[in-house]
């Protein structure tokens, strides 16, 4: 089965932190296909390896064994410089802790990414998408957690990436704000057919995904395919 094509093809992916007695097996042979243009939700208990997997997919971390293909390219074989280019040109990140530059305004935080992207939205447009046009000149310390997270999303989508990787984007938000953030992600997915991966602890979020992947103890335990995706507005938790 060749269509739809794959964003990521993950085979026997293993990640071990440390060595010897203190070695932690974060991933113990993950096999996973992430389809292009779909929303994939990653679920699982704390410590099950979700962030580790996402980081490796995003080229933020390297695997101990196994392979990850992004289209034709094998991420696990890439050099540091190639990974840098890969992140720059293809991936948008939304981190659990926002990770905004405290000394830059909302606008400038987005600009930080559009500077080096090949065909980005303007920072203004990106902030428009997340509904923060009027906060563009505020510093992170002057914004609420939800606002900071939306800046982080604007920053991630501004470069119009092929994949959007989000680690608990709603973790620190109330459900109303969370829905708003999810709606933005869904819009991006639909408008730009960006592949979106979302880590979440809220099982209800799975309803808006094409596919929900359950991790346990560093392995894929289950994959649930939704025939019908729910709209972000319909979800509550």
């Amino acid at each position: 089965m060749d269509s739809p094509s794959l964003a990521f093809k993950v085979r026997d992916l293993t990640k071990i932190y440390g060595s010897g007695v203190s070695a932690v097996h974060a991933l113990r042979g993950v096999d996973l296909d992430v389809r292009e243009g779909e929303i994939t939700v990653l679920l699982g208990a704390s410590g099950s390896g979700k962030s580790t997997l996402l980081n490796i997919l995003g080229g933020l971390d390297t695997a101990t064994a196994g392979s990850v293909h992004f289209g034709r390219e094998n991420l696990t074989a890439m050099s540091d410089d190639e990974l840098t280019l890969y992140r720059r040109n293809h991936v948008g990140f939304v981190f659990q802790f926002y990770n905004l530059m405290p000394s830059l305004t909302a606008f400038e935080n987005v600009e930080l990414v559009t500077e080096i992207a090949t065909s980005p939205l303007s920072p203004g447009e990106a902030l428009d998408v997340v509904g923060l046009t009027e906060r563009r000149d505020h510093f992170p310390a002057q914004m609420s957690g939800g606002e900071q997270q939306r800046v982080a999303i604007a920053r991630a989508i501004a470069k119009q990436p092929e994949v959007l990787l989000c680690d608990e984007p709603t973790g620190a938000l109330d459900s109303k704000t969370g829905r708003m953030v999810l709606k933005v992600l869904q819009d991006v997915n639909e408008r730009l057919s960006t592949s979106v991966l979302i880590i979440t602890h809220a099982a209800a979020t799975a309803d808006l995904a094409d596919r929900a992947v359950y991790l346990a103890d560093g392995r894929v335990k289950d994959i649930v395919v939704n025939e019908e995706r729910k709209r972000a507005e319909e979800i509550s938790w």
Partner: protein
Amino acid sequence: MSPLDKKLLRDLWRMKSQAAAIAAVIALGVLINVMMGGLINTLEETKRAYYERYRLADVFAPAKRAPNRLLKDIAALPGVAAVEGRIQGGALIDLQGVDVPIRARVLSLPESGSPRLNDYYLVDGRRMDPTRDDEILILNGFAKAHGLKPGGSISATINGEKRTFDIVGLVQAPEYLFSVAPGELAPDDSRFAVIWASEDALAKTFDLDGAFNEALVSLSRGASLPAVLSGIDRLLDPYGGLGAYGLADQTSNRFIVEELKGLRSSSTVVPPIFLAIAAFLLYIVVSRIVQSEREEIGLLKAFGYSNFAVAAHYFKFVLAIATGGALLGCLLGIFSGCGMAQLYQNYFKFPFLAFEVEPRAFIMGMTVSVLAASIGALFVLIGVFRLSPAVAMRPPAPADYSRTMALAQFIKLRLDQPSRMVLRRLVRQPMRAVSAIVGIAAGMALTVTQLSVLGSFNSSLDLSFSVIDRSDLSVSFVEPIGQKAIYELKRIEGVIEVEPFRSVPAILRNGLRSCRGGIEGLQSEPHLNRAVDKEVKPIYVRSDGIILSKALADKLAIDPGETLTIDVREGRRPILEVPVVAIANTLLGAPAYFERHALNRAMKEPGRVSGAFMRIDTAHAAEIYRTLKEMPIVAGVNVKGEARQAFQRLMDEGAGSVRYIMTAIAAIITFGIVYNSARIAFAERARDLASMRVIGFTKGEATFVLLGELGVITLAALPLGAILGYALLQLVASGFSTDLYQIPADFVPDAHGTAALAVIVAAAFSGFLVKRDVDRLDLISVLKTRE
């Protein structure tokens, strides 16, 4: 502007106190180099220009009485560019209200026009009227010291003839930048005068019509000094030539050369050490600043910024601080160099200044600052780049407290929570603590060294003027005379003890090395003026050989047991070969001692004395001075108290004032280092401290955690600083020593105590400044960002 550059500017602004503190330290390190380089270049260039403009002679050739026609023969010698003959002689000046007779030198000026060589600069008044023989010019410094002005008059005894002269002008001359009374080491404006009078008048007084007793010679380019000297000596020999000598041996020039050498050597050794220590601090602070940006570095990497782009950003950041500091240092260095030069202009009595900078100091300051900052940033960046962005971005690495477990268990019962936090942090990041300790210790070492140098000067003075020389005054005679004079001195009321000496001017040689000086013939067991060894025990002068001062022995590279050649420049001018029997530990001057009778025997002039050291009852001092003034055999009187004061002034105003400035800069750098350590610790801990405050610790407890660490580090730095300071002193002591005085590299307890106290005060004050920031800590914004 790119967002990264905006980040750079905002981060600089956010860290302005830290950035300013470290930039200030590096600025001081650069400043002192630029200042000293500029000062020395300016003084040397000024001296050169002054000598050139006023045609200072290259050779001085005194004789008893040489006919003027001989000047033509001298001019004909190969290598001689110009010749001037003049009359010079000693005089005693009698000033109202001054008991001690003042020695003076009188010099002749040609009847018309300026002298061909050794011109003068008229500060005040007018030139002499060639038709009058009672008009004189007088050295400005002396006139100022005694309030003499043009229009006034002065009475002087010249060649036994007492006369009154009208002062018509005050002058400065390159020949007398320093006026040093014969037989003394330190210059004193008030106790030595120079008088210029008409040639005719002096020819009459000294009975030198149609003759001269000193030839001044300037050399043509490329001339050989030794050849010219021996040529002149040959010509003057039949006329009582006393030996021609070059400018290098001229008293005033020798002083200025030694002072400049002292300045230069202390400025080549000391300021680079200041800079090195400032650079070390810069290195530490920069690496800690960059280290604290680890998460940002990871984030930039996560976005796809290349290592190069990220490194470029941080290099710009640290170089902004480093070059900012270095540039500031250069600028301030130029200014303070000029300021210092103006101070020194007075001291050296230059009529003008030729400002010069020292480009090498700029280049060195810039290079060292840029390198220190770059290397500091580079090492950290390499370390962070080795991490995957995912790891680098993780908020502060989960602390590994396992190492502190044993300790924690041990102290659990004894210490409260905040104390434990202080200790854990020190143990957990030992390298950071060690570098902070070394930094503060290095800062303290600077202060220790500088204070030790100051202290050593004082002990030098004590040693020389209390232990070595225990007389109250010394008298020198017009010429070596018989013992009878000593009895005359002993008869004066109030004189307690008289100890004769014979001193002989000579050129001392050892192989190719030579040195103009003299031999002091002392009593075999001297009471009043003694030689001492390293343990400050008296050395008894010996009749079987010479005892050399350490400075002289070093200069001649001669050891006990070897033979010294003494080329005597007095009387029959014999050449003596005498063994060196010991080395004495004198700190001032560079004397050579011999037993008096042995010296007289060698000179074949038995029973002669050149003068005497005297101990007197101070109640009779004034009368004694007056009696001495009336004695025709007395050429001059040196009062030890005055000589000591002159020396103290030399130390305080000359090269000495630089030492005070260096000490001040050392103290500021020490403070800067301590303050920077406190600042950076605060910057790194701001989040932790805010968290502590949030979970209910008081401001006091939060401050304690921060300052406790600083306190422990400061205390640990004190002993190390003392050791480093002592080691540094060994390194720089020779740099502060000159031919005139030596700095012993001894342990000076006061210096260590004061420096330690200064470090503690600096720590307390820094703590106070940082505590205000802890109190002002904006809990919300600190916790909100970065998480």
